[in-house]
């Protein structure tokens, strides 16, 4: 369970990205965060695994307050949380298999990993994650040889290899074409449903968010302006979140 209590984030340049966010996300949910660019979606998401440190309020993960966690404790926390990025963030010059194996790096001693040594069980886990994502046959190809959709699946396999309870996705389909977008979103839905992994995703396309997520959190100017079921969203609420009616590019349009 993730619990935000009056969470605030002010960047060193004075920008107040979060102005007091309180919410709870329960295990097994598929949550989409929507809002304008610059509304604070990314900050909200990244504060959960402390890629961004909050400057006010409290943030609990399974009843542990994370603001004070650092060093080894923080790394232990992060390794149980998968993260997916807009630009996939794979090591392009490495094979798909080695990329996926990096999901196990934090579970192994530094000395061994520096020499590229992993236990057999971890190697098997990496290959099984690739199989789950349907790209086992690509295991020994260099990551930059794959298409965008395939690369995002490799990133998902890397996240799965961490054996996470939670996956954070920051605009996971924003750099994909409409067809691959649907495939990757289906993958998220499958991971959420079959493996019971909680998904929190920032979404640019509102219709996709409504279709796949079970819960929508609307962010505007660093504050939560809507929090409820996808089914409860109507045009009035969207106008409230976006401050205007939706633009064409905010819909995938099916």
């Amino acid at each position: 369970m993730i619990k935000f209590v009056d969470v605030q984030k002010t960047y060193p340049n004075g920008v107040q990205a979060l102005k007091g966010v309180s919410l709870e996300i329960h295990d097994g949910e598929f949550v989409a965060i929507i809002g304008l660019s610059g509304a604070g979606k990314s900050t909200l998401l990244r504060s959960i695994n402390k890629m961004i440190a909050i400057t006010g309020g409290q943030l609990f993960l399974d009843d542990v307050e994370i603001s004070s966690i650092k060093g080894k404790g923080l790394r232990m926390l992060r390794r149980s949380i998968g993260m997916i990025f807009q630009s996939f963030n794979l090591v392009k010059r490495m094979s798909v298999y080695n990329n996926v194996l990096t999901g196990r790096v934090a579970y192994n001693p530094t000395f061994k990993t520096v020499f590229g040594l992993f236990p057999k069980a971890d190697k098997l886990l990496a290959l099984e994650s690739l199989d789950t994502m349907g790209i086992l046959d690509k295991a020994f190809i260099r990551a930059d040889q794959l298409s965008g959709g395939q690369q995002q699946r490799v990133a998902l396999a890397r996240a799965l290899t961490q054996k996470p309870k939670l996956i954070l996705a920051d605009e996971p389909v924003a750099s994909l074409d409409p067809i691959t977008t649907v495939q990757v979103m289906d993958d998220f839905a499958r991971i959420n449903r079959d493996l019971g992994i909680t998904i929190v995703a920032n979404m640019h396309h509102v219709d996709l968010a409504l279709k796949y997520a079970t819960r929508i959190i609307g962010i505007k100017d660093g504050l939560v302006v809507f929090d409820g079921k996808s089914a409860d969203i109507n045009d009035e609420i969207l106008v409230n979140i976006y401050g205007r009616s939706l633009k064409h590019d905010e819909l995938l349009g099916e």
Partner: protein
Amino acid sequence: MAKFTLTNGKIIVKPFNKIWLVLGALIALVILFSYFIPLDLVNFKPDQLPIVLKKMFTPQRNRTWADYFEFIFSLQDLLVLTLQMCYGGTVLGSLLAIPLALLSSKNIVKTKFVYGPARFILNLFRTIPVTILAVLSISMVGSGVLAGIFAMMFFTFGIMAKMLYEVIETIDMNCYEALESTGANKLQSVRFAVLPQVFPVFIGYVMYIFEINVRSSAILSYVGVASLGNVIRENELIGYDRIGGAIIVIFVTSLIVQFLSSAIRRKLQ
């Protein structure tokens, strides 16, 4: 500044292009140069060049072509010594440069208090000419191949650290962020996100610096480190053909190294 009026009456002004300022400054520099540098063309004797070249690359003083080539092949001991020195120095210096390059990279260490001093150290090494490094090395380990290795090592260390951190600062940091998000520590993140990106370039630099070292090893003879430069030093005034022979050996060696390095770099792409 140019002003355009479109057919529909809209007006757009093209801003002044700063390239003209740069060009003007360059022209000023050239004028200043011709005024400032005393070019004494009285001693400019281009007709001497072919004469010297002929003296270098043909047998001199009653020697035959057989003597000339025999001499070239007799240089193999000195060549081995030179290569030992350059190889040892390049490898050790390159390896030592890796941690310093990482500590000098703004995108890896982020705090000025680390990359500042690290850069200061590497700049310090880079300001010392290789001959001075050799003199210092000789004072530590005596003259011999070890002194040469030390000199080459410090020299390599300085340039490699500088070139490497500049490469590290241009790499894609997205995958580094991804590694951090999996809970990997700094060393692990460097190993999996930085190393694969930097490694091919690093190997290319090792070869490149080795090549520079082979060429610059000649100069070390003048401060007492034995190398192919000995031939040049010992025959300064009389034996142009001996010097020519040594130059051929250095030339062929660095040609081979260049060929090898480009072949290896191609493989690593």
